[in-house]
C-alpha cells in the first residue's frame, strides 16, 4: 500500500453529485416493502428504480451501461443512501468487476447493461458441500463435448438463486491438473434443463441461500466466461471485490443503524448507562474507520493498485464493525430479544454470518499471513 499522499477526490465535484442525487431521491421516494414481500424482491424493485435515475454502476464504463465515473462517486452515492435511511446500493459491484476483467467484449456488452439494469439478476455458485473454505476441492465437473459442455454436480449456499436468472458458476474442466488451472467459470441460466434450485431456511428465518443441483446441464461455449482454466483467478477477483464493504453496499446499511443508536444517546440521555454510551461511540468509530478505509482503498485502486490480497483486511474490518454494531444494537433495544422475530434480531443473526461468507475470518487471516506478510508456509493450504 502506498505511503505517499492519496487523492480522495475533489470534494466540490463529489458534493455536486451528492446534491444531484439528493434532489433525485426527494422526487423518487424509496418504495415501501409490501406485507410478506420477500426482501430480495423488494430490493430488486429498489434496484430498478435507482437504475432508472442512473444511480447504478457509477464506476462502470458507459458502453457497458454505467456512468463512467470513478469508484469515489460510487462511495458518495452509498453514503447518501445511508444518510437518508434508504436501502443500500444493489450488491452487484463485485460481479460486475469479475465480468469487466474476465468476460469477452461480446459478453460484457451483452451481460453488463442487463446486470446493471436489474433485467438479469445474478447469483454466485462457488461453494459446494465438500468445498467451502477449500474451493480448490470442488467436484462439480463440466465435461467438454465438441462445441459445448455438460455439467454435473451440486452447489451449496448459493444466495438468492431462487430469485436469480443467471449463476456465475465454477466447475472443474480438468480432473487431473492443479486446481488453480483446472477450474472454469460459466454464466449458467437457471432455467436451463437439468438445474434444480432448492431454497434452505436460514437461522434468521429468511430463505436466502439455496442448494443447486446440476444434472447433465448443457452449457454452450459462448456461456463460458474467460478461457478454460480462468476460474480460479476469476474467483479470486470476485472475492477480492466482495470483501470491500464499498462494493457490497454494506456501508450505508451500517451508517443508518449507527445513526439510530446515536440519536438514542440524545433521546435517552438520562437513562442510558455510561458503558453503553461509549459502546455506541465505539460503533461510530468502527463505522467511520470502515468508511475511511473504503475510501483509502478506493483511492489506491484509482491510483492503479488492484484489489489484491489486502482486501482480506477490508473484510475483517467490515466484520468487526458489523458484529459489534448489532451486538450493541441489541443492548440498546433489548425489547428486540423479548419480542422475537423483530427485524433487528434477524439482522443480528445475519451479522454472525459476516465472519463466514465471502471466506471465513480464519481464511482471511491465512491470506494476510501468506500473501500480504509473506510469512513462511506451514504446508497446504
Amino acid at each position, binding site marked *: 500500500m502506498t505511503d505517499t499522499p492519496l487523492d480522495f477526490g475533489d470534494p466540490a465535484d463529489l458534493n455536486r453529485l451528492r446534491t444531484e442525487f439528493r434532489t433525485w431521491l426527494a422526487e423518487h421516494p424509496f418504495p415501501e416493502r409490501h406485507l410478506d414481500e420477500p426482501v430480495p424482491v423488494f430490493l430488486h424493485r429498489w434496484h430498478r428504480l435507482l437504475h432508472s435515475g442512473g444511480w447504478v454502476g457509477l464506476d462502470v464504463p458507459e458502453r457497458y451501461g454505467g456512468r463512467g465515473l470513478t469508484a469515489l462517486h460510487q462511495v458518495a452515492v452509498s453514503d447518501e443512501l445511508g444518510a437518508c435511511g434508504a436501502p443500500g446500493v444493489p450488491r452487484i459491484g463485485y460481479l460486475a468487476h469479475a465480468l469487466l476483467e474476465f468476460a469477452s467484449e461480446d459478453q460484457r456488452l451483452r451481460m453488463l447493461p442487463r446486470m446493471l439494469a436489474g433485467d438479469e439478476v445474478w447469483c454466485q455458485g462457488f461453494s459446494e458441500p465438500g468445498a467451502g473454505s477449500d474451493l480448490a476441492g470442488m467436484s462439480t465437473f463440466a465435461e467438454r463435448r465438441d462445441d459445448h459442455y455438460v455439467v454435473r454436480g451440486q452447489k451449496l449456499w448459493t444466495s438468492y438463486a431462487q430469485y436469480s436468472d443467471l449463476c456465475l458458476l465454477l466447475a472443474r474442466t480438468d480432473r487431473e491438473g492443479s486446481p488453480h488451472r483446472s477450474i472454469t467459470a460459466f454464466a449458467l441460466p437457471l432455467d436451463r434443463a437439468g438445474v434444480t434450485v432448492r431454497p434452505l431456511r436460514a437461522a434468521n428465518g429468511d430463505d436466502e441461500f439455496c442448494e443447486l443441483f446440476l444434472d447433465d446441464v448443457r452449457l454452450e461455449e459462448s456461456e463460458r466466461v474467460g478461457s478454460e482454466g480462468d476460474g480460479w483467478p476469476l474467483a479470486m477477483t470476485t472475492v477480492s471485490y466482495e470483501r470491500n464493504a464499498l462494493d457490497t453496499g454494506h456501508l450505508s446499511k451500517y451508517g443508518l443503524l449507527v445513526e439510530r443508536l446515536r440519536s438514542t444517546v440524545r433521546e435517552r440521555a438520562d437513562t442510558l448507562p455510561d458503558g453503553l*454510551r*461509549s459502546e455506541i461511540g465505539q460503533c461510530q468509530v468502527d463505522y467511520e474507520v470502515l468508511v*475511511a478505509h473504503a475510501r483509502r482503498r478506493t483511492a489506491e485502486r484509482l491510483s492503479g493498485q488492484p484489489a489484491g490480497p489486502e482486501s482480506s483486511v477490508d473484510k475483517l*474490518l467490515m466484520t468487526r464493525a458489523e458484529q459489534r454494531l448489532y451486538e450493541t444494537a441489541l443492548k440498546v433495544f433489548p425489547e428486540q430479544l423479548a419480542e422475537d422475530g423483530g427485524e433487528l434480531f434477524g439482522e443480528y443473526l445475519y451479522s454472525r454470518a459476516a465472519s463466514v461468507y465471502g471466506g471465513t475470518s480464519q481464511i*482471511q*487471516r491465512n491470506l494476510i499471513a501468506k500473501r500480504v506478510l509473506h510469512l513462511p*508456509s506451514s504446508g497446504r493450504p
Partner: protein
Amino acid sequence: METEEFVLVRDLLRSFATRFRVGSADDVKPSLGAAAQEALGELGLAELRRSTPPAATVQECALLAEEHGSLPLATSLLGTALLAPELLRLVGVPAAPGRTPTIALARDLRFPAASPSPLVAWDSEGADEALCVLPDGTVTAVGLGPAAPSVDLLRTIRTALPSQHVVGRLDPAGHLRWQAYALIVVASELVGAARSFVAQSVGYARERAQYGRPVGSFQAVQHLLADATVLVEACTSASRYAAWSLDHESPQRALAAARVAKAEVNRSAVEAVYAGMQVFGGIAQTWEHIAHLYLRKVRVGATVLATTADLLTVLAEPEATR
C-alpha cells in the same frame, strides 16, 4: 508539494531516522538527544507549516509524523517542527527570532483545561518555550522549567513555568483546525510506530526457528500478526483520511474525522504493539530490546490530547449539522 518533492523530503527524514535511531533504552542520553535535535533542525521541516498557504499539506505532515514514529527517535519533530509552527500560523503571529517553541499540555498530557495550571511543555527537545491553547482559544507562551520524568523514554517533557503572556487568539474555525491538526499529527506518529513495530515482528517471525521451523509458519502466530496488520491498516486509513479532510473539508468535518482517528489509534496501536511483543517472546521483555520503547510511546500516546473515554463520549452523540 509535488509528489516527487514530498518523496525527497520523506527520504531525508528516513535517512535521518536510520542514522539517529536509538538502539536501546540505554542510548537515550541528553547529549545524544541534543545532537539529533540539531541535525533534525537542519532539515528545515519547521518551515513546512510556517507560511500561508503552507508549503506542505496536512496529509504530507501526517506522513512525516508517521515516518518519525517508525524508528525509536528521541527528537521533537511533532512539538517543535509541526505543532508549534502551525499554531503560530493559525494565530497569525510570526515566530520570535531565535526562539524555538513547542506546545504546552495539561499535566495529564490532555488538551489544557480552563484553569491552565499546572502545565508541561510536551515534546520539548531543543525547545525554549511552550505555547498553550486555552479552551477559549487564547494562546499564551510559557517558559520552561526542569525536565519532568516521563514513561515515554523517547519524549522530553519539561515542567512549564507559571509566567505567561498572551501571544494571540484563535478564531473559532482556527480553534477547530488546531484541535484536528494536533490530534492527526499525534495519531499519525503512533500509527508509524505501530506499523513499524509489527513489521519488525513479522521479520523476526520469518527468522526465528522453534521445533525445527520458523515460528511464523505456525498458524497461531500468523493469525496474531494478521490481526495486528488489520489494526495497523485501520489506524492508517483513519488518520490519513482525517489528514486529507483537514486539507479539503470544513474544520468541523475534519475534527470529527480526527477524533475518530485518535480513538482508533488509542485502542489499536497499543493492541498491535502487544501482538508484536508476543511474537518476539521473551526477548521483548528485556530492557535492551526496543519493544518497550514502542510500547511506552503508544501507551502514553493513547492518553495524549484526548483519551479514548473523552473521545467516545463525544462521538456517541450525533453532530448538530451533517
